[in-house]
């Protein structure tokens, strides 16, 4: 049962994607995508419920009784050849070179595996709690985004440039992406992992280049280049694992006695996928794509592949200095990306940097490699996926409405789009305020990083800077005035339902944060680290994360809300006053507050938040942090070879 579900989870999205591509009209395509999304959600739920406790292994050879290695080799080769063809079409020598290297590596790997049987046997796919959690995140959140895309793309295609691809192909790639991602998190065989890894690269290339404008083509090429580099690193890692320790499975790498060199290469691949510094440029470029694509790349798929890989590998390397280097790289990305976000007023760019920053935090937690840190990383991964999806969807809706993605222009959205703005508010608040999960995670992250001061320092700096850029945006978007006549939002059902579900998810995870931790993540962490030597201290902290603080916080928020309701009787229209502008207010409409300035002319009262772009200049910081990040990566490799 489980094995067929697994194959369905990978193939069903692709099949529904093909159906959507083949669909003759918008209406039938809508049905295909909706049914496909719902089916994927249903499949993932059934998969999660019916899965056996503990680990189970699935081999294609057992299922089909044939020699499936040839299938894997063929697919690997095929993808590399496709990349090469694309490289020729987009005229990029670098990508072509990388694709040729990939072909070479695939052949070499096949040659090695034919020559000697692997020392450690393994299966093609592995089902365990981590994989199930990942599949649920990918399938559920990804499907919601696909449904949102239905409403979004209708508007987008109407205004899209003439070069844009048809929405049939768009939905094929978007929905198929989920299947590839499911395959990625389930694969245990390094070869299958590589196949899905490269397939997600191709999907993101197609989606980023959807509009076909010179800018989007350029950025798609960049994404392909950097991720192909990651692919080469991954294939090199698996080749070295095979040739060095005779291992061809992920589980083998963690089990084989300190397979450090493959670990370093896989970590490098993970960093490219998760857009950690210095590889962040492709994720920033990806924002030219339609918003559902950004939402998908940032929340459920693509970047999550990298952190998943680190999470998968980490428990096998407790106490290793390489893991420390990985944690350091993650913590550095956390702080540096937060610093980069401070100077940005472009909403999508802020979101992108915040994604990089949060992924850095997850990687740092995984690298710290204690049960508490591991559970924190898992919780961060879940919360971040929900929140980022929600925020991107809201920003996309806002952008389509006000025609700008500048944060400073968003002072009016409370009137134009009350529901979307409320959802965005919930999402942003959940990034920095209690009782939402992010804050609990940050709390646990700092507590678990306490043993490594350097990482701790980056976490502290990053937290302060994170606060800075979120508070600015949150403040701008919630601006309201009493006389406001809120517009009724007229949004397509698909957009509204996606926003509601994700907003509800954010609130639910806030309420359920601690129970989730105690029921799911803490046991998961304990189980993962079973039999591995860890300090009793980190386990004791794991126990001490109680619900009391969070309950008290919720109680006091509720008290404040009740008090606010009780003061409601004071709120009478005749008590409303305009803001004090040191002069005479001029009321023209609900949105702007003006005062009489020179010559009795109305003058706008207007201030922007602080961006400090002389200090936090993007180009300058990027240059410096990239060099430092490269230094950290080199340190990682130096540690591997034992310098």
């Amino acid at each position, binding site marked *: 049962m489980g094995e067929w579900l697994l194959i369905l989870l990978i193939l069903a999205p692709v099949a529904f994607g093909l159906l959507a591509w083949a669909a003759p009209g918008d209406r039938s395509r809508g049905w295909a995508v909706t049914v496909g999304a719902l089916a994927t959600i249903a499949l993932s739920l059934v998969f999660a419920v019916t899965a056996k406790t503990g680990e189970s292994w699935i081999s294609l050879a057992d299922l089909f009784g044939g020699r499936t290695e040839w299938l894997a080799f063929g697919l690997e080769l095929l993808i590399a050849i496709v990349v090469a063809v694309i490289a020729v079409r987009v005229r990029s020598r670098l990508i072509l070179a990388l694709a040729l290297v990939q072909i070479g590596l695939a052949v070499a790997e096949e040659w090695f595996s034919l020559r000697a049987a692997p020392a450690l046997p393994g299966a093609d796919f592995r089902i365990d709690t981590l994989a199930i959690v990942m599949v649920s995140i990918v399938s559920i959140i990804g499907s919601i985004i696909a449904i949102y895309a239905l409403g979004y793309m209708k508007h987008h295609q109407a205004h899209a440039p003439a070069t844009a691809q048809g929405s049939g192909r768009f939905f094929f790639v978007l929905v198929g992406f989920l299947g590839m991602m499911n395959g990625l998190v389930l694969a245990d065989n390094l070869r299958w992992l590589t196949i899905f890894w490269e397939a997600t690269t191709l999907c993101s290339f197609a989606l980023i280049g959807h509009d076909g404008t010179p800018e989007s083509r350029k950025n798609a090429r960049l994404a392909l280049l950097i991720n192909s580099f990651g692919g080469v690193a991954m294939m090199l890692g698996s080749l070295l694992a095979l040739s060095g320790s005779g291992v061809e499975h992920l589980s083998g790498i963690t089990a084989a006695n300190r397979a450090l060199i493959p670990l370093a290469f896989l970590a490098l691949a993970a960093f490219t996928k998760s857009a950690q510094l210095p590889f962040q440029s492709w994720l920033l470029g990806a924002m030219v794509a339609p918003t559902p694509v950004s939402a998908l790349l940032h929340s459920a798929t693509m970047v999550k592949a990298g952190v998943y890989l680190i999470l998968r590998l980490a428990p096998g390397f407790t106490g290793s200095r390489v893991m420390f280097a990985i944690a350091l790289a993650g913590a550095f990305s956390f702080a540096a990306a937060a610093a980069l976000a401070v100077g940005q007023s472009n909403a999508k760019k802020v979101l992108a940097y915040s994604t990089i920053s949060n992924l850095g935090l997850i990687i740092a937690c995984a690298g710290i490699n204690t049960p508490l840190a591991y559970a924190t990383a898992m919780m961060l991964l879940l919360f971040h996926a929900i929140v980022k999806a929600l925020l991107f969807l809201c920003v996309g809706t806002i952008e389509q409405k006000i025609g700008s993605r500048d944060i400073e222009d968003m002072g009016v959205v409370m009137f134009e789009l009350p529901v979307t703005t409320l959802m965005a508010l919930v999402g942003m608040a959940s990034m920095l305020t209690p009782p939402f999960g992010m804050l609990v995670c940050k709390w646990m992250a700092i507590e678990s990083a306490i043993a490594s001061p350097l990482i701790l320092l980056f976490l502290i700096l990053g937290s302060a800077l994170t606060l800075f850029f979120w508070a600015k945006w949150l403040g701008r978007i919630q601006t309201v005035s009493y006389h406001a006549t809120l517009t009724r939002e007229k949004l397509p059902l698909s957009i509204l339902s996606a926003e509601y579900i994700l907003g509800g998810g954010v609130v639910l995870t806030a309420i359920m944060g601690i129970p989730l931790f105690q029921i799911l993540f803490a046991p998961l962490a304990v189980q993962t680290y079973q039999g591995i030597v860890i300090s009793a201290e980190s386990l004791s902290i794991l126990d001490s994360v109680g619900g009391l603080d969070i309950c008290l916080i919720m109680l006091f928020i509720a008290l404040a809300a009740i008090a606010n309701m009780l003061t409601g009787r004071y709120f009478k229209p005749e008590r409303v*006053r*305009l803001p*004090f502008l040191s*002069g*005479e*207010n001029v009321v023209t409409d609900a949105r702007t507050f003006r005062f*009489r300035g020179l010559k*009795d002319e109305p003058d706008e009262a207007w201030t922007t938040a602080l961006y400090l772009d002389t200090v936090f200049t993007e180009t300058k910081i990027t240059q410096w942090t990239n060099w430092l990040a490269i230094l950290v990566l080199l340190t990682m490799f130096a540690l591997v070879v034992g310098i």
Partner: protein
Amino acid sequence: MKILAKSPWVVHFNCNSCNGCDIEFLACLTPLYDLERFGVLHIGNPKHADILVVTGSVNHRNARVLENVYLQIPDPKVVVAIGVCTSTGGIFADCYNILGGIDKVIPVDVFIPGCPPRPEAIIDGLVQSLEKLEAKRAGKKVAPARKPTFTFRPPEEAEAPVTPSPAGSAGHGGKE
């Protein structure tokens, strides 16, 4: 219990005063007079204030601003008018743009005469206004202050009709 009288916060608004009264009012806050010992704070914001202190002869343009500032003060509140300009317009009374007393714009509770009044007089006026503040809080009807009738106005100039001088020629002594 006199709640309001124990911490009167003052916002000061200048309706084109010559700054004489303003400086005298600020002198009240200096160590010599120390208004803060009565709990008085000089606050720049009408939304925090209890007492509106006005100086200067109000004109057509800043009358609207004055009214706006007055409306933004939460009740109960009192208005203290400092200087003769605020009651009649003072030496500016004959100017074309002068309304002649701020009581034409907002109700005034205490007039403090003088050009400018001494700080002692201002403190006295503020203390008087506190009684009215408490009375207003108690819900008593408080009558507006009686307006001083005198004005500073040299008699010979007051009789002569004002002839506006040609633009640009006046006030640049030496050439004529």
